[in-house]
């Protein structure tokens, strides 16, 4: 770890002004990615702004058909929330399978989506449910929020404050984990969402993406069989020692089938 200034944020506005004025200042939420990055000297920030004191950003509320989760809400809180389990059980299930218990009790939804790791689970949940990301400046639809690998629509001084999930008719998430890291090699979130069928894939490509052919097939026939013969091209998918692009492409179909079956 290199030396840096540590600043405990007193408000979202204060945090935004610090990172807005200094491109080398960084926010830390749960720190599940950023602290290891610092420890390995892979980042040299000028200032680290700690968001953990901002209690207003943590919490889960349900209003009508919308579940809103504060940016600083831990994965474990989502996984264990009776409200989430009642409204969108697939989202509680997704959160309950992120990392391990230590990660789930530190990591936050805001930190996860702002980091946009290509193998993270939440991006599939947000895109699969057609969620809306609220920031200190605006609201951004999930489809427009995730841009590319580790890249989001967030401006330099923009901070995620909460995520709103419209309740789906039904939904489920299935992931095939990397055996070592347990991140998603391929995770597929399927939903009969508020605006139609959504199939969102994480882990397989550089960034979460939707599979239009599967969405169309499921719109007319919500069954595992409907997607069984729909294959996704391996072109542009990720490759590493654990999974080739072809294997990931294959897993998209397998996980999509299983997610549809799980959703019922």
């Amino acid at each position, binding site marked *: *770890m290199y030396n840096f200034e540590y600043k405990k944020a007193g408000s979202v506005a204060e945090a935004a002004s610090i990172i807005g004025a200094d491109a080398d200042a960084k926010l830390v939420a749960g720190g599940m990615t950023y602290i290891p990055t610092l420890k390995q000297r892979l980042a040299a920030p000028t200032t680290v702004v700690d968001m953990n004191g901002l209690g207003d950003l943590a919490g889960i509320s349900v209003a009508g058909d919308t579940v809103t989760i504060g940016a600083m809400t831990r994965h474990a809180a989502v996984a264990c929330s009776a409200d989430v389990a009642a409204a969108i059980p697939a989202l509680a299930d997704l959160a309950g399978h992120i990392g391990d218990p230590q990660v789930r009790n530190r990591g936050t939804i805001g930190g996860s989506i702002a980091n946009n790791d290509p193998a993270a689970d939440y991006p599939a949940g947000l895109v699969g449910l057609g969620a809306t990301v609220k920031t200190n400046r605006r609201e951004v639809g999930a489809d427009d929020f995730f841009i590319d690998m580790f890249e989001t629509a967030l401006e330099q001084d923009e901070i995620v404050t909460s995520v709103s999930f419209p309740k789906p008719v039904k939904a489920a998430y299935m992931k095939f984990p990397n055996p070592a890291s347990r991140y998603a090699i391929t995770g597929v979130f399927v939903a009969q969402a508020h605006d139609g069928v959504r199939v969102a894939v994480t882990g397989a490509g550089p960034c979460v993406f939707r599979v239009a052919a599967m969405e169309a097939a499921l719109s007319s026939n919500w069954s595992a069989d409907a997607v069984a013969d729909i294959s996704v091209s391996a072109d542009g998918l990720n490759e*590493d*020692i654990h999974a080739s692009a072809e*294997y990931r492409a294959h897993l998209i179909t397998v996980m999509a089938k299983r997610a549809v079956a799980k959703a019922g």
Partner: protein
Amino acid sequence: MTEQGIGAAIARREDRRFVTGQGHYTDDINRMGQTYAVFVRSPHAHAIINSISMDAAKGMPGVRDIFIGKDLADGGVGPLICGWAITDVNGEPHKAPPHPALAMGKVRHVGDPVAVVIADTQHQAMDAAAKVDVDYSVLDAAADLATAQGSNVQIHEEAPGNLCYEWEIGDKAAIDAAFDSAAHVTELEFLNNRLVPNAMEPRACVAEYDGGTGDYTLYLTSQNPHVHRLVMSAFNGLAPEHKLRVVAPDVGGGFGSKIFVYAEEVVLTWACRHVGRPIKWTAERSESFVTDAHGRDHVTKAELALDADGLFLAMRVNTMANMGAYLSTFASAVPTYLYATLLAGQYTTGGIYANVKAVFTNTVPVDAYRGAGRPEAAYVVERLVEAAAAETGRDPADLRKRNFVQKDAFPYQTPVVMQYDCGDFHGSMEQALALIGYTGFAGRKEASRADGKLRGIGFSSYIEACGIAPSAAVGSLGAGVGLWESANIRFNPTGNVQLFTGCHSHGQGHETAYAQIVADKLGVPYEQVDVIHGDTARIPFGMGTYGSRSAAVGGSAILKAADKVIEKGKKIAAHCLEASEDDIEFSAGNFTVTGTDKAMNIAEVAFTAYVPHNYPDGVEPGLDETAFYDPLNFSFPAGTHICEVEIDPDTGAVSIEKYAAVDDFGTLINPLIVEGQIHGGIAQGVGQAVLESAVYDGDGQLVSGSYMDYTMPRADDLPHYDVGFNSVPSPLNPLGVKGCGEAGAIAAPAAVMNAVHNALRDMGVNHVEMPATPQRVWEAIQGAQGAAE
């Protein structure tokens, strides 16, 4: 058996401090005025060092000094050595290129240390290390074992074609003739995947020099502090043995990787005198990946010849073994005498020929890792036998039983050096078949099929050589050391006991098991026996712990020392009880006069020995006895492990569903500890079979260099284990023990992979390498289906 004596399944006394954070590890040690070392390491697998610029770094805050290889050479520090001399097929010694503790002229693997920075704080040393500017000319790397030999890349001038040695055992012409007469030949080619040891505690050391006395003290993560002291004195020339104290305090796992003498330990011991301050180094986890000696890494072609009745006529094995960039401390012995001598397995195979080529590559050195050669041998034998059964349409259990060494045939001389002392291979097989429920397998397979899964069953009837080792025998094979063990039983005047052992516990539970031996043998309450190990200033010379030797060799030394205590105690008791020494009997802690009720407890004898007011003439005061024990032979733990896996054909994921292990470890000192050793060993064996792999790319970069990519076994990867014992006490040591530390890691890879192959046979798949990862299994299924279409 007493409640806390030999055979009692009592919980480990050391665990309380380990699980409550009260252990004392090397990194917990801090000395007055301590400084910190950070090593500058090669980012390249193979490169010429053109220059090393240290000026900027030397001016950084807190920097005490920076040393490079030339400083060590000028200071008379000898290179790192390999302590086992292999004689090659031409009668020549193996190629032993120099291995300087800091690279000189050339770097040969990623992580090879080039310089060391000593600074007042860890971060100052890290900052300065980043400023050491090494100018490299990058060379092509030979990172792949299969192609390194004879490639254009020349790693060491002393080893043309990167061949360290070619070695053989057996009569090749006779074996070839046996193959010519065979009714059936099974032939397999496979890898034995490279593993990173991954001890929970990374390696660390703290070196200190006392200018007043001229004494060095080195605290480090070692499995054998006296071996470290001996090598560092005799070969690295750091200090005479009597001026170097080596302390290995609590050590958090070794698995072999902490046997060896590493560059960091040598450098710190030399540098602490020059800097005039104690120096600490603790490996980062990422540093452990590229500096701890790795394990396994073979490419093998193996053949088994059978007659028409399924009897094993002969075995022929050709193996290439990866040595890495340099020979580690015992590297040369692992793929030779710890490997080929176990190729007979549990069978009466008529003849065996093995040829081993040890090859240098631009990778981290490879040396002993839990099992060391024996897992590789068991994998060869058991994969061959299982494949032969499938090919000839025989039940794998029946084919094994047909070829087992029979219970009444011991001692049994194998064609490859070893003489097995005793065993009951049939009995273990039958017990394992019952434990796994072999007759129910077909039903379970059908149930899996109905669930869309492929189920397979696999066997591994392994044998290993432990109790390492009879000194004269290993000496004749090239070992540079004797492999006896010592024990010192010291009674205190108040009757309690300190046992000083030359073995070293780094997770094995010696503090409990050894106290049980002393309590059982001498009748002293278990709570009044403490076990002391790991400090050359406190313990008698000892060879340490590896090769499942602590019970068979270290435990036998304890018994010998206890015998001496009893012998002396009888003299003292005879005097005090006014009887003839010949009439004194010793049992359960009491010296009694035969045929009378006159008795004296051993605590009273101890008190008398230290307060000898009324004492026999000619007997020395004190009750403090030391014994050295050199084993008569190796011991031969053996057993049958049976594994059942279920494979998801859509994803290729392998799930271990059932695992039965029946082992013959001879006498069990503490069955609870033994069961724990079995569990841990199987976990590492399952890890090798389906999870773990050290993957290098063509440039010699370690791709699986962190836990993001190196798959460690986790609790949810592992099944419930059904463990059974079929103990046949060894007649060759006084405890009758055989050793249990490595068995699981030796047996499991073949059991799991045989089950994987069994499951996939219906899909037309006949070859999957370890680790059988989901992608690899899926690709094998795709390949077989493509071939079938």
